């Protein structure tokens, strides 16, 4: 007969625990639960394993990619039609500005 608890820790609680982001009392309760619940302990181990793979393998390879993607202009801004439209708009605004000064 298994003495495994009926209710389990949520993924958010497990992740917060792993990040050290749980308030002390909640952390104590979560650790007490983990000590008695093999299913939750296994989920924690599984998440930790994926997280470690990310830190060691994925992150070093993708950090620069992400940085570059963030510096790129939005794809719609790069379309020739949009660029032409923006140039016309800038010209119209400049002409209106000049006209206002002239008046």
């Amino acid at each position, binding site marked *: 007969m298994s003495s495994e608890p009926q209710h389990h820790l*949520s*993924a*958010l609680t497990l*992740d917060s625990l792993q*990040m050290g982001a749980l308030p002390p009392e909640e952390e104590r309760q979560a650790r007490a639960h983990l000590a008695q619940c093999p299913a*939750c302990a296994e989920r924690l181990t599984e998440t930790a394993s994926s*997280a*470690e793979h990310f830190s060691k393998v994925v992150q070093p390879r993708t950090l620069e990619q992400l940085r570059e993607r963030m510096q790129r202009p939005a794809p719609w801004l790069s379309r020739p039609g949009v660029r032409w439209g923006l140039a016309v708009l800038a010209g119209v605004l400049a002409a209106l500005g000049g006209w206002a000064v002239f008046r």
Partner: protein
Amino acid sequence: MALYQSYGPLIYARCRKILQDETAAEDATQETFMRAYKHLAKVKDASEALPWIYNIATHYCLNLLRDGRRWAEPVAEVPERSGQHAEESCGDRDFLLRLFERVPEKVRVVAWLHYMEGLDQSEVARVLGVSRRTVVYRLAELTEAAAHLRTGGA
């Protein structure tokens, strides 16, 4: 890039859990952080950062699954058993995944977080930035769709 370095590992683990594919999880993690950085100003408090990024990642991954029609694919592992079991309320995971095709995104995300990730109603409300009452309504909508599916409704 501090956000990516701090939260990336756990968000990747979440994406991998949902998508069950390493490469797709990698892409989903990048996309999640692209979106997160764009709207970073919405996070007022550091303690809300994890639930907030969770929300973005879950929406993104569930939409990927929907668009790829991957709901019915065999699942390689046992569903997460947390909080209230999905089986108790909706039947097995395959049934829940079929059900997800029939409900709107807002219901699907609530159901995923509650039944598959084991978040209780208050946690779901916190992650999605909605009231607990809204979560209750959306779960009720799922239950109704489940009853309809069980009786063979289209």
